[in-house]
C-alpha cells in the first residue's frame, strides 16, 4: 500500500495522504459488505462502467477551465499541505514566478513544467542562514562550485563541454612507458605541456572562453587556461552536464587526436558568466542561450536551516509535477468502446492547447515494449491511425505517417501513471516529437444521453478545493448506482461513494465540530436542485490529479483483493540478472 501511495505521489506530485485515507475507507466498506470473487470483478467493472460514465455525465458539468495566468490559486492549497502557514504565500509566489519566467508563453508551459519537475535539483540553489524573504529568481543557472579559473569577460561568449582530462597522460592504467634516456623523458613531459598550451590557444582562437568540465583538470590546464583567458569550471555532476546539454543542445567535446586545426563547432552560447556569492561561498552563475522552449532561470532558495530548504525544494518540485498533470486529460478507455481486452488497457495522454481559433490535440505517447505483445501494439497503432484519419484534413497526417514511430503508452493494469512517469524520465528529449493533429471530434455515444468527446476530463480542468470533487463524485456515483441493475456493482458503487466522503471528513475535522455535516448538506441540496455549487476563494485543484487518485486507489484495491496468500521467504528477493553469481567460494 505504501509503495502504491508513493508511486502515485511520484507520478502526480500529490495525494499520498488522500490515497491512504481513501484506500482505508474503501477497504473498510468492502469488508463490511462482505468480500467475494463477485465483488472483486464488480470492482473492475465499476471503473469502466460507472466511474467513467459518472465523470462524463455528471462531473464534467461542474468543471471549469483554469484561469489564465493564475498559478497561485492552484499552488497555495497544494503547498498548504506541505509547508507551515508562514512560508506558504511567499513560496507560492516564488514558484509561480519561476514558472512564468522560465516559460513566457503559455504554449510552452507543459514542456517547461516537465523540465522543471525533472531537473529542479539543478535549477535551484539553497542558501541556509538567510530568511525566506531573501529568496529570489535569477536568470541563468547557478553551478554550486567556484571557478577553477576565472577570467572576467563581458558580452556573449562561447562555452565548451568536456568530460575527460585535457592534459594528455604519459601512460594509462595497464600501459608501460619505457624511459630510454633522461632527455627523452624530459622531452616527453615538455611535449605534453606544450600540447596543453596549444590546445588552450586553439580554444582561444575559436572564441571559447569557458570550459565546463565534468572531471577535475590538472593544474597545468588551469594555468594555461588563465593565461589564455579561458574560465574553467570543474567537477560538474552528470546531472548538471545533462541539464546544460539539454538547454543548449550541445554535446561534450572530445579533443582526441592531433588535429588541432579543426574548428570547434559544438559550442554553447553563454550570455554572461560571473561569480555569485552565496553565503560567503563563491558559485558560478552563467546565462545560457536556450535552444528549447525553456528559458533558463534559477531559484535561490533561502531558509534558516538546510532541512527547511530541503523541505521547501521538495514541495516546489512536487508542485511542478502537480502543475504538469494539470495539462493532461483523462480519456475514456479504449475497451469501453471496443469490446474485449481486459488485462492491459491503453489510454492516450492528451494535451490541449487552446490556440486562437481551433483546438489542437497533442498525443504524447510513449512505448513500453516489455509489456506489450506485438499484435497488441499493432492493434493499438491501428486504432491510433484510425483516429488520425478520422478528421477530414489529411495533409498534416501524411507527414505524421512518415515519421512512423507511433509510440504508445501502455498502462499495465494498476500503475498507469507510474509507467508513464518512468518513461518520461528516460525518454527526455524524444518526447518532443509528438503528433499534432487537428481535432474536432464531437461524438455522441449511444449508451449515454449526453454528448462528449473521447476525453473525459479536459486539460486544465479545475475545481475549488475543500472536498468539492469528492462530494460531486459521491453524489453522481450514488445517483448512477440507483439505476444500475447489477447488484454487485451497486454495492461497490455505494461503498466507493461513501468512502469518498472520508476525505472531506478528514479535511473538516480540524475546523468546527459539525463543519462537515453542514458543508455536505448544503452541497447535496444544491446538487438536487441542479444549482451550481458555491465558490470559495481558498484555491483550486486539478481534477486530473483527483481523478487519477481515485483510479489508482481502485487499482490498488483490486490488486490487494486478488492476493490470497502472503508467503514469507528467508532470503531477500534478487533481481534476475545477478542471481547466479554467488555462493561459490
Amino acid at each position, binding site marked *: 500500500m505504501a509503495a502504491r501511495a508513493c508511486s502515485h505521489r511520484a507520478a502526480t506530485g500529490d495525494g499520498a495522504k488522500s490515497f491512504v485515507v481513501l484506500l482505508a475507507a474503501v477497504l473498510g466498506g468492502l469488508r463490511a459488505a462482505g468480500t467475494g470473487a463477485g465483488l472483486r470483478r464488480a470492482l473492475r467493472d465499476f471503473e469502466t462502467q460507472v466511474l467513467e460514465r459518472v465523470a462524463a455525465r455528471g462531473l464534467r458539468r461542474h468543471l471549469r477551465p483554469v484561469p489564465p495566468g493564475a498559478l497561485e490559486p492552484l499552488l497555495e492549497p497544494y503547498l498548504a499541505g506541505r509547508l507551515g502557514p508562514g512560508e506558504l504565500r511567499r513560496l507560492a509566489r516564488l514558484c509561480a514566478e519561476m514558472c512564468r519566467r522560465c516559460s513566457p508563453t503559455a504554449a510552452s508551459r507543459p514542456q517547461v513544467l516537465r523540465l522543471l519537475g525533472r531537473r529542479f535539483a539543478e535549477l535551484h540553489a539553497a542558501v541556509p542562514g538567510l530568511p525566506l524573504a531573501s529568496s529570489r529568481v535569477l536568470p541563468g543557472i547557478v553551478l554550486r562550485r567556484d571557478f577553477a579559473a576565472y577570467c572576467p569577460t563581458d558580452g556573449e561568449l562561447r562555452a565548451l563541454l568536456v568530460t575527460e582530462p585535457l592534459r594528455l597522460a604519459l601512460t594509462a592504467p595497464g600501459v608501460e612507458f619505457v624511459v630510454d634516456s633522461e632527455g627523452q623523458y624530459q622531452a616527453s613531459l615538455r611535449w605534453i*605541456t606544450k600540447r596543453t598550451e596549444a590546445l588552450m590557444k586553439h580554444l582561444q582562437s575559436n572564441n571559447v572562453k569557458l570550459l565546463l568540465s565534468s572531471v577535475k583538470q590538472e593544474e597545468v590546464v588551469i594555468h594555461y587556461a588563465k593565461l589564455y583567458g579561458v574560465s574553467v569550471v570543474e567537477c560538474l555532476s552528470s546531472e548538471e552536464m545533462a541539464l546544460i546539454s539539454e538547454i543548449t543542445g550541445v554535446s561534450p567535446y572530445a579533443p582526441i587526436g592531433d588535429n588541432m586545426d579543426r574548428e570547434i563547432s559544438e559550442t554553447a552560447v553563454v550570455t554572461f558568466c560571473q561569480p555569485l556569492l552565496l553565503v560567503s561561498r563563491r558559485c558560478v552563475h552563467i546565462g545560457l542561450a536556450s535552444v528549447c522552449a525553456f528559458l533558463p532561470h534559477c531559484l535561490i532558495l533561502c531558509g534558516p536551516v538546510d*532541512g527547511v530548504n530541503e523541505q521547501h525544494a521538495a514541495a516546489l518540485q512536487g508542485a511542478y509535477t502537480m502543475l504538469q498533470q494539470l495539462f493532461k486529460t483523462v480519456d475514456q478507455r479504449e475497451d469501453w468502446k471496443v469490446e474485449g481486452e481486459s488485462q492491459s488497457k491503453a489510454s492516450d495522454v492528451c494535451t490541449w492547447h487552446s490556440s486562437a481559433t481551433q483546438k489542437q490535440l497533442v498525443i504524447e505517447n510513449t512505448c513500453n515494449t516489455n509489456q506489450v505483445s506485438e499484435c497488441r501494439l499493432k492493434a493499438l497503432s491501428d486504432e491510433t491511425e484510425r483516429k488520425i484519419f478520422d478528421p477530414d484534413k489529411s495533409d498534416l497526417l501524411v507527414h505524421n505517417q512518415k515519421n512512423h514511430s507511433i509510440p504508445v503508452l501502455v498502462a499495465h493494469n494498476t500503475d498507469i501513471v507510474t509507467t508513464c512517469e518512468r518513461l518520461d524520465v528516460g525518454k527526455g528529449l524524444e518526447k518532443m516529437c509528438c503528433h499534432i493533429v487537428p481535432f474536432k471530434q464531437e461524438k455522441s455515444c449511444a449508451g449515454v444521453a449526453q454528448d462528449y468527446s473521447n476525453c473525459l476530463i479536459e486539460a486544465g480542468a479545475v475545481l475549488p478545493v475543500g472536498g468539492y470533487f469528492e462530494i460531486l463524485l459521491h453524489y453522481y456515483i450514488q445517483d448512477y448506482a440507483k439505476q444500475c441493475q447489477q447488484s454487485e456493482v451497486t454495492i461497490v458503487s455505494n461503498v466507493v461513494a461513501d468512502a469518498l466522503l472520508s476525505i472531506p471528513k478528514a479535511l473538516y475535522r480540524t475546523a468546527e465540530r459539525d463543519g462537515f455535516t453542514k458543508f455536505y448538506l448544503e452541497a447535496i441540496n444544491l446538487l438536487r436542485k441542479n444549482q451550481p455549487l458555491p465558490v470559495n476563494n481558498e484555491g483550486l485543484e486539478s481534477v486530473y490529479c483527483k481523478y487519477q487518485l481515485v483510479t489508482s486507489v481502485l487499482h490498488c484495491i483490486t490488486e490487494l483483493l486478488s492476493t490470497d496468500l502472503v508467503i514469507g521467504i528467508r532470503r531477500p528477493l534478487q533481481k534476475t540478472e545477478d542471481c547466479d553469481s554467488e555462493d561459490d567460494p
Partner: protein
Amino acid sequence: MSRLEAKKPPLFISEPLTRDAVSQSLCLLSGILKSSYGPAGRLKQLHNGVGGCVCTTSQSSALLGHLSISQPVLRVLTASVRNHVSRFSDCGLFTAILCCGFIENFRSLNVAPFTVIKISKHLLSLCMDHLKSEACGCRVSVDFSSVETLVCLVQSILTSKPACMLNKTEVHHLTSLVLKAFIFTVPCHVETNAVLGKCVVIPVKGRRVVDSAVLPGLLIEAPEIQLGKPLAVKRTGSNMIKIALFSVSMSGDGSNPEEGTIAVHHGVSLEVSELNQLLNVGKQLVKDEVGLVVCQKVMHPSLKQYLKENGVVAVDRAGLSLMEPLGHVTGSQPIASIHSLSPGCYGSLKDLCVESFASKHFLHLIPEDTVICSLILCNRSETAWDELKRVCETAEHVLQLTVKEPWALLGGGCTETHLASYIRHKSSSLPASTFKDLGCSQTQYQLVADGFCRSLETVARSLSHDGEEVLTDVVYGHCWFVPSGSPCVSRWSDLVSKCGCGVNGNTEDLSWSFLQGQSGSTILQGCPKEPSVKVADLQTLDCFAAKCSGLQVALETASLILDLSYIIEDQN
C-alpha cells in the same frame, strides 16, 4: 561476519514542546545564552573532562559550536543560529535569545500555532517595514565620509565580548587598526564592479594587544631569513621587483600524476633529470631578472642555493591559503609546470623588506597599489587571542555589510524596546479588515502581539547582569538601566543619566516605567518619537543587516518549531 542487530522501531514524540525534557533544555539553553549577552555578559569556559585546551568565551559561534545538544527541537534552533552567524558574523546571541523568547512566549498562549504563526508573520512585516522606512526612530545612517559612526560601530563590537580582555586604550588602538585595515581593502580606482579586498590576520600570541599593527601588502613567514643583513634584491630597469609564483612542487622528487607504470632503463635517473630541469628553470628565472620566487610547496635545496647565489630571494612552503592573495598583490599567475615558463606569468612588487614580530621573521611584500593588507594581531593568551580574532573578523565583516546598506541600529537594548513600543502602538490601531485577512480575532492578535513584544524586551533585559533595573520611557521607547543598589527616590530622572545607546539624556521628563515584560505595564501614548541623534552622543551601534536578518530568522525558526507536532527519530 558482522553481528546483525534487530532493527529498532523509530521513536515517536508527539507534541514535543509540551514535554518537560524539551522545556528544561530550552530553558537551560536560553539561560546560557542570556547570561553571555552584552559587554557585561558572563564568560563560559568550555573544556573537555579528558583534557585539552580550555575555551573561554561568550560568543554564540563558539558556544553553539561546542555544545552537544541532543534535543532535535534545539538542534534546529542552534543550526539556524549558526547558519545566520556564518552569513553575517554578528547578532548570533540576539537571534538565539529572541528565538527562545518567541518559543517560550508563544507556547504559553492559548492560541492555535497556525494562528500564532500567521499573526507573528504579520507583526514581523510591520517591524521590517518600520526598520526600512525613513521615519524609523532606532536607525541612524552611517556617513562614510566621517569616521565617528564607524568608530562607534567597531567599538561596540570589540567591547561586546569581554573574553577579549581589552582595556580602554587597547580598544581604541584596535578600533583604529580595524578601520585602517578596512580602508586598505577598499579599492582606490573604482570601476563598475567594485570588489573589496582582503585583510589577512597574522597570529602573534603572547604579546601585548597594543603591539598589534596593520600593514599594506602581504607578510610571508620566512624563518630562514636573517634579520641583521640588509636584503639585496634584484630590480628590473623600472626599479620594480619581478616575482614568480609557483603552485607546482619544486622538490624534484618526480611525483607523477600518471596512473600507468614508467619503466626506467639502467643508468637513467629520473631524479637527476628532474633536478636538471629545475636548475634550467632557475637559469631561466635569473635570465628573466626575477627578484623573488615564492613556491607554494617544497623547493629543492640545490635550486634554493642556486637562486640565492644569483641574488634571487626564494621562499617555499607558502601554503595554499596565501596563493590567492599573493596573486592579487603581485599580479602574477601561479605557474603550474616546470617545463615551460611564459613571461606573462610574472608579477611585480614595489619593495620587499624584512619585518620581525615576536621572534618571527616575515618578508613584507609591498605592492604599488593594493586592496590586500595584513593585520598582525597580538594578545596575551591563546584563548583570548582566539576570541579577539573572531571579534576582529566580525568587525571587518560588519563594516563590509554596512557599505552595502549604510545604516546602523541603536545598540544598548534601545532598538528592541523601541520596536516593542512601536508594535504595541501599531497593533492597537489596526483596521478590522486585517484580523479578517489573518483569520483571527482582535483578542488573539493582541495576545500574540504582546508575546512578540515581550520577546523583544527579553533581549534588552538580558543586557543587565548585575541586578540593574531596566526601564523604558514612553516618549522614545528607549531602554534605560538603573545601577543596582540605588537609593529609593521619587523621581527616576535622578537615577538614570543616559539611555542604553546614549542618544537621550534625562533632561526632559520621559515618564519611565519598569520593563518587566508583564503585559499592560507600558502605558501607551502613541507612536514612539524619533529622537534627534547627535553622533557624538552615540555609545553603541549594531549592524543593520545582521540584526534585520537575525530578527527574521529568529521568527522563522520559532514558527518552524512551534509548528512541530511530531518528532520521528530513527534509532538505528
